C-alpha cells in the first residue's frame, strides 16, 4: 500500500532509521557539515562546541556515520540556489509595490474591527463558501491538533489579524455592519 506519503514501506524505513549513539550523531550531522563549509546565508542552528567535538570523535570510529557525513556534505554543497537575479528582482518589486506607502489609518481601523470581531468569536463566517478540499489534507500524518498551517493568518494556532488577506478583512468589516 502506498497511499500515505510518509508511510510506504515503513518496515524498510524503520531498518534505515539509525539507533542509539549513531542516531544522535546523525541528527547533528547537517549542522556539523554546514559549519565545515561556512556557507554564506546559513542562518541555521549553531552546533555547540561540545557537540561538535562529540560528532568529530564519533566519526573517527564509526564508518557508517562517516559515510553519511560525506554524503550529506556532498548533497549540501549542491543544494538548489535561487537565481542570482532574484534579490534585485524582489527589491525592485518591493519599491514599486503599491501598498508600501499607503496610509496606515484605514488598515488600522480594519485591524481594530477584525480584532473586535475575533474577540466576539465571530470567526467562522469565512467558511460560508465551501472551498474545495485542499489537496494537502489528504496526506496528513500525526500533527498538532490545531490545523493552522496553510492559513497564513494563523501561526501555531494564533490568529495574526494583520496577516488576514484584504478581502477577508473587507468581509470581516462588512460582517460587523448592522
Amino acid at each position, binding site marked *: 500500500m*502506498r*497511499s*500515505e*506519503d*510518509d508511510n510506504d514501506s515503513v518496515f524498510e524505513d524503520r531498518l*534505515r*532509521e*539509525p539507533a542509539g549513539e549513531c*542516531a544522535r550523531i*546523525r*541528527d547533528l550531522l*547537517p*549542522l556539523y557539515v554546514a559549519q565545515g563549509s561556512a556557507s554564506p*546565508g*546559513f*542562518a*541555521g*542552528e*549553531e552546533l555547540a562546541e561540545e557537540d561538535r567535538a562529540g560528532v568529530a570523535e564519533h566519526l573517527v570510529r564509526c564508518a557508517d556515520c562517516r559515510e*553519511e557525513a560525506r*554524503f550529506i556534505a*556532498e*548533497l*549540501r554543497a*549542491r*543544494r*538548489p540556489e*535561487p*537565481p542570482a537575479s*532574484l534579490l534585485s*528582482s*524582489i*527589491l525592485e*518589486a*518591493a519599491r514599486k*509595490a503599491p501598498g*508600501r506607502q499607503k496610509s*496606515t489609518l484605514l*488598515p488600522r481601523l480594519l*485591524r481594530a474591527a477584525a480584532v473586535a470581531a475575533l474577540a466576539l468569536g465571530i470567526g467562522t463566517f469565512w467558511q460560508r463558501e465551501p472551498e*474545495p*478540499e485542499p*489537496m*494537502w489534507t*489528504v*496526506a496528513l*500524518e*500525526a*500533527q*498538532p491538533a490545531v490545523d493552522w*498551517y*496553510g*492559513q*497564513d493568518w494563523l*501561526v*501555531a494556532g494564533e490568529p*495574526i*489579524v*494583520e*496577516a488576514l488577506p484584504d478581502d477577508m478583512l473587507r468581509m470581516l468589516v462588512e460582517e460587523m455592519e448592522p
Partner: protein
Amino acid sequence: MSDPGRSRDPADAELVELAVQGDARALEQLVIRHQGVVYRFVLGFLKDEDLAADVTQDTFLKVLDRLEGFRGESAFRTWLLAIARNEALGLIRSRGRRREESIDEAGGFEDGPFEDGREAPDARVLEADDVARIRVALDRLPEKQRLSVSLRLFDGLSFREVGEVIGSLEGAARVNYHYGIGRLREWLQ
C-alpha cells in the same frame, strides 16, 4: 537552545523594525538572509525553478505588506515560511483548477513517485551532472521527506521548526528527515 534565525546580528526582529520604518538596507538584509530558504522550501512543493523564484518573490512582497503586523510572537523565519507555504499551495491549487486536473484524487499528490506526469529518471538523466541527479532524486522523495531534508540539511532548521512549517510534530519531522536521507543514499550512492 539558541533561537534559529536570530543567532546573527542584527536579529531578524530588529531588521523588521527598521524595515517597517522604511530602512531599505534592513529590508535588503532580510531578503538576502532568507531568500535561499524560502526558494528551496517552495521548490520542494513546486519542483520548478522558475515557479519557485516567482513564488519566492510573491512571498516577500506579501510579507513586506504585512511586516508592520509582525509582532515577533513567532520567529520571523517561521512566519515567512508559513506564508511561503500558503503561496506555493495556492499556486498549485489554482493551476490544478485551470488545467482541470485532479491531482489529489486518490492519495494526494504523493501518490506516484512522479506526479505531474514526469518520467522516472532514466539512465540519461542519471548520467547528467550531480546537481541534476540530486534534483531528480529529491523530487522523487515523498513531499514531507523532501521538505524535511531541505529545511534541515540545506538550511539548518531545528526539527521543531521543520515540524512547524511542514505541519508535523517535531518527532515526525525528524523521522521524515532520516527516511529521506536513507532513500537518497540508496538512490545516489
